[in-house]
């Protein structure tokens, strides 16, 4: 049996059409192979959901004449089979009190919204962590196998830990957010942030320019208030009294970046008066060469651990940026999936992790799986680094180096 359960229409359109029964209330069974519908029944009829309802291609909502559709979604799992029934109910016209049922010749369509549809599009390249655990228990655990018996929770633990480790350097699970830097020059770290990969500002052509971290300044983790003797002050509870603002940060925010990176402004080129030497021009001859670390005009950022924000230099105010970062793959339910190219590496990771923690287990077997894990992880990294020979050759052509292929 193939792994694909959805038919073409379900996959590409993410929608299902129904024929109304002519009554005030239509109960529609959502196909179980499709992305489940989400609707918070405790909220209002217009609350968050991942689908829309159309009648003859007109999107419906509770205030739209003539049907004034309200909805309720019942999700049941009986004997392991999930069934979702979406009930659409025509309600009374507020002005006339007349209830208009959806006619039987109308076409009722329930369609997933774009984010859910997009998730569905890419779903085949991943395998769920639930399936990883189930597959592992079937194929690697049992009588006459290397692992005769193991707790399911142990497998779940190692699978999740493996996913976390893989997320940092093996999987292509880099997340990115498009943000605008506010005048405060600070952006809160994303909820599932573990580490950054790259920050770039976007120019008018949509081209990325890398923003580098800087060591020119730093963010204090504590800003204690001091008395005249320099001693830290305490609040009425005896705790350290701290300022909410760091002066270092303030000065950095107000710093003239051209004074730091040596960038010349237009006056430096147009002022032809060689005798017009201000006191500051006396320092001209002192810039011997450029320090590459600071000789760039893309701006800088630091991570302010005290406030949990990314702090940017003043020249980046109001700039559009892209923040690329890694998470650990466990933050959200929909994140807990593994690229199929790394599936085998995860099995061997679980295998090795379990064997290496077992007492009285032959060390040579443990070592065998250690090597196997390492080899498969390397394979996964190579696969996921997405090296294509033609693309590689093209890059090398730019370097005036010929590679035969």
């Amino acid at each position, binding site marked *: 049996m193939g792994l694909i359960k959805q038919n073409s229409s379900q996959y590409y359109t993410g929608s299902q059409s129904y024929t109304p029964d002519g009554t005030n209330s239509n109960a529609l069974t959502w196909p179980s192979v499709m992305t489940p519908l989400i609707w918070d029944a405790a909220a209002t009829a217009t609350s968050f959901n991942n689908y829309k309802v159309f009648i003859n291609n007109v999107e419906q909502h509770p205030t739209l004449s003539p049907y004034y559709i309200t909805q309720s979604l019942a999700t049941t*799992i*009986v*004997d*392991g*089979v*999930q069934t979702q029934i979406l009930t659409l109910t025509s309600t009374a016209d507020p002005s006339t009190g007349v209830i208009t049922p959806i006619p039987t010749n109308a076409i009722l369509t329930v369609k997933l919204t774009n984010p859910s549809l997009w998730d569905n599009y890419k779903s085949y390249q991943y395998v769920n962590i*639930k399936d990883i*655990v*189930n597959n592992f228990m079937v194929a690697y655990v049992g*009588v*006459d196998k290397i692992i005769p018996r193991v*707790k*399911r*929770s142990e497998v*779940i*633990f190692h699978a*999740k*830990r493996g996913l976390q480790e893989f997320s940092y350097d093996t999987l292509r699970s880099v997340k990115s957010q498009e943000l605008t830097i506010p005048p405060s020059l600070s952006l809160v770290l994303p909820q599932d942030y573990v580490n950054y990969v790259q920050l770039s500002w976007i120019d008018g052509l949509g081209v990325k320019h890398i923003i580098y971290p800087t060591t020119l300044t730093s963010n204090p983790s504590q800003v204690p208030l001091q008395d005249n003797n320099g001693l830290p002050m305490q609040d009425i509870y005896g705790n350290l009294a701290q300022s909410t603002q760091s002066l270092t940060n303030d000065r950095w925010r107000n710093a003239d970046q051209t004074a730091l990176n040596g960038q010349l402004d237009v006056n430096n080129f147009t002022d032809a008066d060689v005798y017009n030497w201000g006191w500051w021009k006396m320092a001209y001859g002192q810039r011997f060469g450029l320090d590459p670390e600071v000789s760039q005009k893309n701006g800088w950022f630091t991570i302010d651990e005290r406030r949990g924000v990314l702090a940017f230099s003043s020249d980046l105010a109001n700039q559009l940026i892209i923040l690329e970062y890694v998470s650990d793959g*466990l933050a959200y339910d929909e994140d807990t999936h593994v690229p199929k190219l790394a599936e085998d590496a995860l099995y061997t990771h679980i295998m090795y992790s379990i064997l290496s923690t077992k007492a009285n287990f032959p060390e040579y077997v443990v070592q065998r799986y250690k090597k196997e894990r390492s080899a498969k992880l390397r394979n996964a990294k190579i696969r996921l680094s997405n090296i294509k020979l033609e693309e590689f050759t093209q890059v090398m052509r730019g370097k005036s180096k010929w590679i035969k292929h």
Partner: protein
Amino acid sequence: MAINVNTVYTTVLSILNKEQRGYLTPDEFNKIATQVQLEIFEKFFEDYNQYLRMPKTDVEFASRVDHILQEFQVFEEIESASAQTNNVYTQPTGLHRFGSASWNKGVNSPPIEILSNRDYNEMKLSPLLQPTNNFPVAKYQKDKLTVFPSELASDKTDVTFNYIRKPKDPRWGFTVGSLGQYIYDPNPPITFTGVLKTNQDLFNTTTGGQNNLVNCSIASGSSTIPNTDITSFVQVTPTGGTGASADFTVDIDPNTGKGPLKSFTITSGGSGFNIGDQITLGDGNNSFAGSSSGVTVFTLQASNFVAVVPSEGSVDFEISDSQQNEVILEILKYAGVVIRDPSIIQAASQELAQEENNNKR
């Protein structure tokens, strides 16, 4: 395939009688047979464990593991919990050895991991191991599973138990012949006859003479007494069961063709009746026996039924017929104890030991 209890009993009797060693009564046989079947049944699981640790073959008919699995597959049951309160599920009543449990609130019914109280307390401290519907866990205490996550618990069908039940007690049932001899009764034993006792006056009155006697047959649903004089007002309606073909004699006042009722006697017991079935007389307008509601209702009680004869009905051994030899030898061993003959015990024990040795070699 099960072992016929009569085959075993007659074989045992033949061996015992041939050697002039004595007689084993059906009651003694039934008790010994139950004990022997349980012994062999319990040994399956120890043998299974032992075979799993021995070198194995997957050649057909030669695999001991496959063989032992076939021996106890008859006793394997898959059943929902017998009761549920919040997230606590009571195991099925017939559970003898717990196998596994699955959580039907998870997609594709994932297995429930059984944890000790200590393991569960440790697990719930780990953010990575929080139970979900895909990875449910449970504590197994006092014959109940406390399942986590608990939010979706709703019905006893949420949890399916896979377990081994105990075999039914074998029984050699008999009827007594005209000469007082025991005749093997191959029918399954019954716990309830469903047949009404005849010549029993449900109304239990002795007054009045012979009046308007009417016979009627009761079928499921409602039945009307087939006498044109009183058809219009007498109904006999059994409710609650599938009883049929019982005949009654109704004795009422001949002058008015109406109540008061004098007797209501069963003349033919029919079949399929249950305790609690109700038989209603009346048409709603006329009274019998002074009933103000116009109807008289008889509710059948245990005493209205023909009693079960305890010795009748047989139950075969449920263990497979490949164990027949062992069953007979074990029964002979115990029979030797019962009739106090050490030579039988010794002979049977030797035979069993040899068989055991061969199996485990």
